[in-house]
């Protein structure tokens, strides 16, 4: 027998069993999952694992690729790192060939790596149809982070065309939209996402994405890619009906093919449409030492293009290598997706292909939702369905597939709260134990209940750790929460491992026990030395309760989060931004000139903020006191842009100038901003005042928004912009100014006392039993009898307010925090440098230590 040549990282110790070696070719999501699954099962260390990754970076969440253009960075897409002690991960190393007889993989750089078992997880490559011009510069595919980087580099403005209106095509269209292009989608089928949804769902999907700025061309092919005669660069596409779309970027998203060249060269059996032919163990039918998982495998004649079946195959092979007998017997192709913010779900027999199947359809143009349920010919069993626009019911409906219908089908499709099963938890309670709740990881309701009742899982994180449920697409997380509720588990509200209390409880403990320091709190009520979760939360509570103290004094300085720590907002290169308060956005030309001179003298980048003030960026730590000396001398004070605190109260010009204004919105905004400045809270707070119903101050997007009426003011609460925009709701109408201020006082103080850490007012009201009605009961009708307390707390805040920056400048000890180095207090950090863009300085992007890899 040939002894394979080995280049193992581990050492051979005489007399000890040498671990068997598995080589994984491909480090995508499925390859990664295989390694995790094998590590989890192989507690004895029987396997040495080598992973070859052609991409220069470890595995990342390819499903969430377009989120890179939506604020996510590469790091946030990365999958959890593999244990470097147990896995030899070779990045940027391609498997060139395999000698099956010798059981050796030869890499691109000529290394020979021996294997006992070989797992192919090479995934797929994008299929590009051979239309003329498809290979011109400016044509792209959409598959890897490198593809995205290439698209981003070329993108400027104008239109971008995506060929293909399936899942990937709409993802690509979203990416182009986030890059600032006007996306066009060209799809040969009569409607979008023809694989997943039917004509009715596709039509609504088309309308919804059109509203989002995507131009949809369905039922038409692409004749050719047009190129610029001078540069050869793609300049658009011509469709088969002669329509021309000018575009700077063309992205092909016309499907994928198994990446099976390595396997073909190895001589193992390949399926008719590609893919390594494998049996139910995911083992090649040609070589028992070769396995294939994910999109490169052809199982029972099918090549699966979704991640969930790939995960199931990865688990199967890991189980087999660990001595188990797991089998992969086809996969459920159910999926819930969010494309351009539009929910699309299809599950089970979505297209009604079962003989005699009946369909119940609900097309609601007002709610902009489409739902279809496919049921058996006796109308007793749910077979599948499609949801577009609102897929909130997906986890419950998908879990019901194959089960008797618990209610009338039309009730199951009705909007939440309207039908008999408006309570999703009740729907879950009615499911059989065999119903799958997490389809990504094939976790059934029974599995979850076992984990809960055995005490192994007490919360969603615990369920994820025990069963992996919720770790894939995440769409079942609400169902997991409901299930915990159904099983009678109270959700843990502990803030972190150090303090087993919620923020609201901590507020009561600190206030009630008169605690003034973190050390006292953690010694009496917690354990360890705290962390970046509990320390800032306690710092905020101490600031709310002890309004006379400076937040940087004594031990408190060490509790403050990144920005509070130096009373400025830390930017990505370690410099800071400075935002002086400009109450209500009103400022004199003389004060504007002070800001301009400070910015010029310190070389700061300037930008107008959304809160009607001016951001000065690029200040070094040691410059902050010098900058603030100039600003405070001119009458400015801290804007608290760095704090979980009141930011601004935005206003329109109001009745002083505006022809439509009915009240003095600027005057009220200034009064409110000065009243609440410096108020520390669970999250940032924003306010707005509009002088008439035209609402130019966008007050309803704020935590508290005031809109003038002929008779006084309307107060709206619980609005926010950000990740999940929400309009504030009317709390009281037509109140005079003094009453208005009293109610806002109580609203803010009640929020500060009872909200969770980093919970904005919107989520706080939503989580309140009784919601807005309850809030009105407490702070207007004083149903709990706490209004006098709330009023007194706010009076204390107003009386004790001092400008934090002025207090720093007056105290040498506080000023000592602003030294750049302990051994060179005023030296600028040589690691910080800038470049110039559009006439202003911006941070130099450093070469990250991580990128040196």
């Amino acid at each position, binding site marked *: 027998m040939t002894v394979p040549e080995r280049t193992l990282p581990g050492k051979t110790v005489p007399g000890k069993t040498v671990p068997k070696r598995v080589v994984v070719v491909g480090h995508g999501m499925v390859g990664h999952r295989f390694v995790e699954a094998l590590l989890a099962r192989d507690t004895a260390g029987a396997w040495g694992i080598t992973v070859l990754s052609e991409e220069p970076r*470890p595995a990342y969440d390819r499903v969430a690729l377009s989120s890179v253009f939506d604020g996510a960075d590469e*790091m946030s897409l*990365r999958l959890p*790192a*593999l*244990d*470097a002690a147990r896995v030899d991960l070779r990045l940027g190393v391609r498997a060139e060939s395999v000698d099956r007889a010798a059981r050796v993989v030869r890499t691109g750089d000529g290394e020979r790596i021996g294997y006992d078992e070989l797992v192919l997880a090479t995934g797929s490559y994008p299929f590009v149809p051979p239309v003329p011009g498809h290979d011109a510069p400016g044509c792209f595919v959409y598959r890897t982070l490198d593809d995205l980087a290439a698209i981003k580099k070329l993108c400027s403005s104008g239109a971008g065309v995506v060929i293909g209106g399936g899942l990937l095509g709409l993802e690509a269209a979203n990416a182009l939209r986030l890059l600032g292009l006007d996306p066009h989608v060209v799809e040969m089928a009569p409607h979008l996402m023809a694989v997943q949804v039917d004509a009715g769902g596709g039509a609504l999907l088309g309308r919804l994405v059109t509203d989002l700025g995507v131009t949809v061309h369905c039922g038409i092919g692409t004749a050719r890619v047009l190129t610029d005669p001078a540069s050869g660069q793609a300049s658009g596409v011509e469709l088969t009906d002669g329509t021309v779309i000018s575009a700077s970027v063309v992205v092909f998203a016309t499907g994928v093919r198994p990446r099976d060249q390595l396997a073909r060269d190895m001589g193992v059996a390949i399926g008719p449409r590609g893919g390594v032919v494998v049996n139910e163990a995911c083992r090649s039918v040609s070589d028992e030492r070769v396995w294939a998982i994910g999109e490169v495998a052809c199982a029972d004649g099918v090549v699966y293009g979704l991640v969930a079946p790939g995960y199931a195959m990865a688990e199967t092979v890991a189980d087999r290598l660990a001595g188990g007998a797991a089998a992969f017997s086809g996969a459920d192709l159910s999926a819930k997706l969010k494309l351009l913010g539009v929910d699309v779900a299809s599950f089970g027999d979505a297209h009604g292909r079962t003989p005699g199947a009946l369909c119940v359809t609900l097309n609601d143009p007002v709610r902009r939702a489409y739902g279809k349920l496919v049921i058996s010919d006796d109308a007793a069993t749910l077979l599948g369905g499609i949801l577009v626009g609102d897929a909130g019911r997906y986890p419950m409906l998908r879990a019901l597939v194959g089960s008797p219908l618990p209610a009338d089908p039309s009730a199951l499709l009705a909007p939440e709260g309207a039908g008999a099963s408006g309570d999703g938890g009740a729907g879950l309670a009615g499911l059989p134990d065999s119903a799958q709740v997490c389809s990504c990881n094939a976790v059934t309701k029974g599995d979850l209940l076992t984990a809960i009742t055995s005490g192994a899982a007490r919360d969603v994180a615990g369920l994820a750790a025990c069963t992996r449920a919720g770790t894939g697409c995440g769409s079942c997380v609400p169902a997991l929460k409901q299930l915990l509720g159904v099983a009678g588990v109270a959700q843990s509200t502990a803030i972190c*491992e*150090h303090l087993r209390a919620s923020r609201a409880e901590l507020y009561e403990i600190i206030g009630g026990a008169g605690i003034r320091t973190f*050390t006292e709190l953690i010694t009496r009520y917690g354990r*360890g*030395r*705290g*962390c*970046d979760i*509990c*320390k*800032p939360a306690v710092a905020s509570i101490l600031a709310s309760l002890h309004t006379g103290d400076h937040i940087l004094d004594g*031990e408190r*300085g*060490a*509790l403050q*989060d*990144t920005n509070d*720590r*130096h009373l400025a907002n*830390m930017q*990505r*290169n*370690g410099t800071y931004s400075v935002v002086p308060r400009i109450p209500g956005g009103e400022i004199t030309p003389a004060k504007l000139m002070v800001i301009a001179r400070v910015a010029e003298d310190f070389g700061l980048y300037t930008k107008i903020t959304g809160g009607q003030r001016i951001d000065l960026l690029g200040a070094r730590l040691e410059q902050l006191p010098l900058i603030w000396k100039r600003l405070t001398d001119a009458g400015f004070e801290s804007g608290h842009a760095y704090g979980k605190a009141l930011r601004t109260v935005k206003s329109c010009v109001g009745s002083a100038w505006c022809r439509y204004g009915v009240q003095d919105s600027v005057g009220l905004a200034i009064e409110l901003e000065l009243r609440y400045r410096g108020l520390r809270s669970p999250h940032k707070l924003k306010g707005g005042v509009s002088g008439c119903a035209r609402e130019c101050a966008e007050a309803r997007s704020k935590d508290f928004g005031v809109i003038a009426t002929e008779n006084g003011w309307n107060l709206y609460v619980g609005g926010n912009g950000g990740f999940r925009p929400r309009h504030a709701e009317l709390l009281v109408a037509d109140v005079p100014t003094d009453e208005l201020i009293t109610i806002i006082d109580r609203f803010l103080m009640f929020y500060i006392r009872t909200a969770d850490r980093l919970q904005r007012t919107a989520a706080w009201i939503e989580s309140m039993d009784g919601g807005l009605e309850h809030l009105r009961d407490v702070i207007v009708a004083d149903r709990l009898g706490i209004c006098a307390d709330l009023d007194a707390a706010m009076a204390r805040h107003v009386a004790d307010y001092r400008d934090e920056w002025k207090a720093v400048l007056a105290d040498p000890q506080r000023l000592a925090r602003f*030294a*750049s*180095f*302990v*051994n*060179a207090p005023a*030296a600028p*950090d*040589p*690691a*910080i440098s800038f470049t110039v863009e559009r006439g202003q300085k911006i941070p130099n*992007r*450093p*070469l*990250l*230590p*991580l990128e040196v*890899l």
Partner: protein
Amino acid sequence: MSIQAIEATVVRVPRSALVPEQGAAVLLPSGKSAAVFMLHDGSVHAVGNLDPFYGAPVICHGIVGDRSGAPTVASPLGKQVFCLRTGACLDDGTVSLPVFPVAADDDMIHLSIPVHEAETDALTS
């Protein structure tokens, strides 16, 4: 080949310049910096100050705490947590901070900086 401990420059910081559980940046002869932390029990740890995720010199401004008893600092930018004893990133096994040996007495903290960190002799205090 001599052992590494000999090929080191010592940078000194007075203990009085450190505040418990608040980091401080120490400028190194190379122009890079170290983040030095004095914990509540008086022990001192020094790691590289450059955040490996952002490339910015900010680790000294992170919140000090513990994870399951091991002393940690959280990056002030991305909140990744690093072990102060080993420099290992506890949220990403592929990343770590360099750790500098520390000798501390009642008055003075002595950091041993490997010579390859110390390209010039300027600025050593």
